[in-house]
């Protein structure tokens, strides 16, 4: 159904990595999913973009406002591309987030609240 496919089987550190994932959650890329996607992208140093088609237009995954304005619906395919030393890791994490319908994993994101 969805695929994470590195563009190059033996990527160089500066190579562009690509992947795609189908939006399966009911609301699509709405408010909360947008915030989660942006926050996840910001954890990586890589430059990360996404689009509805592999030809673009590409949107910066780290821009909260641009991601929120994207408004992709359930059933749409999102294409991702990333460049940078942690690009492969970033793509895998983001594709996984979309594939599991933006459900929060038992990630380290849930720090104990302090006040």
């Amino acid at each position, binding site marked *: 159904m969805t695929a994470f496919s590195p563009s190059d089987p033996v990527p160089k550190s500066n190579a562009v990595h690509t992947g795609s994932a189908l939006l399966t959650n009911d609301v699509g890329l709405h408010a909360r999913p947008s*915030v989660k996607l*942006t926050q996840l992208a910001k954890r990586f140093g890589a430059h990360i973009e996404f689009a509805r088609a592999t030809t673009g237009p590409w949107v910066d995954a780290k821009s909260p406002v641009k991601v929120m304005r994207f408004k992709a619906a359930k059933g749409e395919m999102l294409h991702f591309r990333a460049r940078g030393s942690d690009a492969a890791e970033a793509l895998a994490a983001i594709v996984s987030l979309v594939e599991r319908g933006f459900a929060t994993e038992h990630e380290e*994101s*849930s720090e104990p*609240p302090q*006040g």
Partner: protein
Amino acid sequence: MNVANVGIVIVSHSPKIAEGAADMVRQMVGDSVPLAWTGGNSEGGLGTDVASIIEAIGRAWSDAGVAVLVDLGGAETNSEMAIDMLEAGRRERVVVCEAPVVEGAVMAATEASGGATLDAVRRTAEELSPT
């Protein structure tokens, strides 16, 4: 709470709006950003109060700075007055964002949660404005 992240203060004439916007930030963005809200005047009516805004800035304080989201007129002027009354060393690190209060708070907090600078947080909030 990551104190290195920029803090967010929400100032509305209505305490319900301010609290509701803060709820949205907490639910959507999480706990990694210092956050405080204030709304209503000292008599409990609609309005804003300089002393309460100063307190809210204190509650959301971060050494990385604080971004203030306001609704209309007095909320903005009172927030600016509150910033002017902060001690030197703090007042330079607080900005009022030209952005819609609810959407701006969520966008600013999202940017702040990634460790962005105060300037980047403000720019993200202000990206929402039409001009």
